[in-house]
């Protein structure tokens, strides 16, 4: 493999790994905050137990989120030195503010975990609120850099590469910042909620004492409510992101839809794959006029096709599939959450019946599926920008390191990520096996 491809694979793997932990690091604190609030309002101790157990899981996940985040942060300079030189001049502001968000989260996380018993009750709520705030702020701020790569703004560049007329705030609030970072935050919340729902559903599969069933049902219901809301908002915000693509990165939208000819009344292609030989989408379903309508709200909107752009700047064709997978995940999960809530409301609650096994099993898979949606989304966003690292400013090849030593290091880090993944799972299961809910319940009532 040549160095550029290797650098991309290396960096993509590091981010793909970090994002799993980072997303849960944004999603779980929200669930903890909600549980703490319900506990303080209703006085129901089950919610305090939930908050406590989720915090434990969150603390273990942070043990991987933080070092893996440090890795990607530093690897940006190691693998993309040319990119970071421009970043430093133009868009270092959100990186910098992000550090404060990290500090906020780290400070209050320690306070919440190690000092909760010495603090008044309201201060617990304040500290966990700041943890959640720090986490979502760091996600939004880091996304700001990524959105700037997609729609760069706030500087001018001479042909020889000299940068001038820098306006850091314009770079920060670039055209896609609001829509994309909102989408990132909401999908992280959605994923955190489905992750909790997965665990609760899994626990409900086995026969358990009534007291424990009630506990898990509360967890399931609460997470489904959040998941439903967030799925709904995330599909709206995803739609908005697509409209921003239409305005600012037309070739990405064209590649996402496998659209080659520029046209009005453009059709939406669902499924299938983009055939590079015939240059059309094969085995997909076409909904006439729908793309034009989605892109700007009118059927006669002109949507640009790939032929409009030089071939060297076409994104890879597989982004069509990635885009479909992400949207598919969103639609399926929205439907699942709606159905489960509906079922609970009309059948389970009224007739004191429990959820059927197949529904519980589907819910068990919702968390991992949502995480897959996150991964598809990112790979889509980053690959759909190819061949650019900074859209129409710097190509990936220009950004990449010239160092040839990547192969061995890549292997070393693959080993690291595999090791940490396995250990995280082992440690979480061992811990929760040793400390089952029943133990926490006894402690609180006893």
């Amino acid at each position: 493999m040549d160095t550029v491809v290797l650098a991309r694979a290396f960096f993509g793997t590091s981010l793909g790994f970090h994002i799993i932990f980072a997303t849960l690091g944004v999603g779980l604190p929200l669930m903890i905050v909600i549980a703490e609030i319900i506990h303080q309002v209703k006085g129901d101790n089950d919610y305090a137990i939930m908050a406590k157990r989720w915090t434990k899981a969150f603390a273990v996940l942070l043990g991987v989120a933080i070092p893996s985040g440090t890795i990607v942060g530093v690897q940006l300079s190691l693998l993309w030195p040319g990119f970071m030189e421009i970043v430093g001049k133009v868009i270092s502001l959100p990186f910098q503010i992000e550090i404060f968000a990290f500090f906020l989260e780290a400070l209050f996380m320690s306070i919440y975990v190690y000092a909760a018993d010495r603090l008044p009750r309201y201060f617990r709520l304040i500290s966990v609120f700041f943890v959640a705030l720090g986490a979502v702020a760091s996600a939004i701020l880091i996304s700001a850099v990524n959105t700037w790569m997609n729609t760069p703004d706030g500087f001018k560049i001479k042909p020889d590469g000299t940068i001038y007329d820098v306006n850091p705030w314009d770079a920060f609030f670039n055209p896609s910042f609001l829509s994309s970072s909102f989408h990132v935050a909401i999908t992280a919340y959605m994923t955190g909620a489905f992750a909790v729902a997965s665990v609760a559903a899994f626990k409900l599969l086995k026969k358990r004492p009534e007291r424990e069933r009630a506990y898990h049902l509360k967890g399931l219901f609460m997470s489904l409510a959040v998941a439903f809301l967030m799925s709904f908002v995330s599909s709206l915000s995803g739609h908005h992101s697509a409209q921003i693509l239409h305005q600012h990165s037309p070739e990405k939208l064209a590649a996402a839809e496998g659209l080659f000819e520029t046209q009005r009344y453009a059709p939406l292609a669902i499924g299938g794959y983009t055939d590079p030989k015939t240059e059309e989408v094969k085995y997909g379903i076409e909904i006439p006029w729908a793309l034009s309508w989605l892109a700007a709200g009118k059927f006669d909107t002109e949507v640009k096709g790939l032929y409009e752009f030089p071939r060297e700047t076409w994104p890879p064709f597989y982004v069509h599939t990635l885009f479909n997978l992400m949207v598919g995940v969103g639609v399926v999960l929205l439907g699942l959450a709606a159905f489960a809530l509906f079922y609970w409301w009309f059948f389970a609650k009224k007739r004191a019946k429990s959820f059927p096994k197949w529904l519980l099993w589907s819910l068990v898979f919702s968390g991992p599926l949502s995480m897959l949606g996150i991964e598809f989304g990112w790979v889509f966003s980053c690959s759909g920008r190819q061949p650019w690292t900074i859209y129409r400013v710097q190509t990936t090849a220009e950004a990449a390191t010239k160092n040839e030593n990547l192969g061995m290091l890549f292997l070393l880090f693959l080993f690291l990520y595999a090791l940490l993944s396995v250990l995280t799972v082992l440690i979480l299961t061992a811990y929760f096996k040793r400390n089952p809910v029943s133990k926490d319940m006894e402690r609180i009532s006893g």
Partner: protein
Amino acid sequence: MMSEEVLAILIMWTFIFVYSIFGSIDFGAGFWAMIYNNHRTMAGKIANRFLSPTWEITNTFLVLLVVAFVGFFPKGAYTLGTVMLVPVSLILFFLAIRSAFMVFSYSVQGYRRTMFIISGISGLLIPSLLIAVLPISQGGFIGVDGETQNLLLEKLFTSPTLYLYVLFGLTSELYLSSLFLADYARVSNKEEAYRLYRSNAILLGPLTLLSALFTLLFMAPESRWLIDNLVDQKIWFVLSLAAFFIAYGSLWWPKQNRPGIGRPRFTLLATVAQYGLASIGYGLAHLPYIVYPDLTIYEAFTATETFYSLMIMYIVGLAILTPGFYVFWRLFLKDKRYLQQE
């Protein structure tokens, strides 16, 4: 009026200095937690009690260093990013192992010892690798190959300069962390643990001084320029030496109003002053180079507009965070209920 470049490097210097102190204490505490695991004096427990709430924050400081450097000196990020691929990747690798295993060790019952050993040892390796930046920045270890620069790994790893720096880094890490933990043990009312850390410090103090001396004496020939500059800054080193003797001597001062020996809080602060003075001298001698001879702070500097917006953010950010740090300090470094639990 100070130029923007100098202001930026001053801020960088402050961050680096703060991190080198906190990082030393952090990694050193990890090492002592491994050595004194299950020790009857509770010395290991005390180290862990300090580490559990603080390691995240220390780690964030490391990230701050990188981010601030990229923001202030993007060209420097380009050069160092290109050149340091291998050593920095190794640092990242060990850092990940260390943090993860430390966190994991709080949640398991078996294997705890293994986890302590792994995180303790990687805590020794990380500072040794971090300090390699210094000899590299002094020149002589970067080769140019057509358009690209690269690190002369073989030359670096066979150079005595590197190992003397590493030795200096390691002894300093252990000395500083012993002093800190001695103080922490004293505040926690664990007199036995205090005595243990104090005797470590008594042993390590002279070793740090010796290794610093040897590092200066055996600097690589390429660093001639630096030695000349260091001689010009000798006043700082004289002051630093004085601070060392005062600090070291205070390990034997009687305790106020009570039986016992040593004033660990004073010793710690005086030692921090000692390192501060020496690194001001070193920093001044190193200017204006970031990496000798190709990269100065003037060439590497960022866009002015970015510089000013970063400055504003530092002020705003610090103002917002200071109360948080204060609460944190009260809860984990001062509150007797946390410190004196069994």
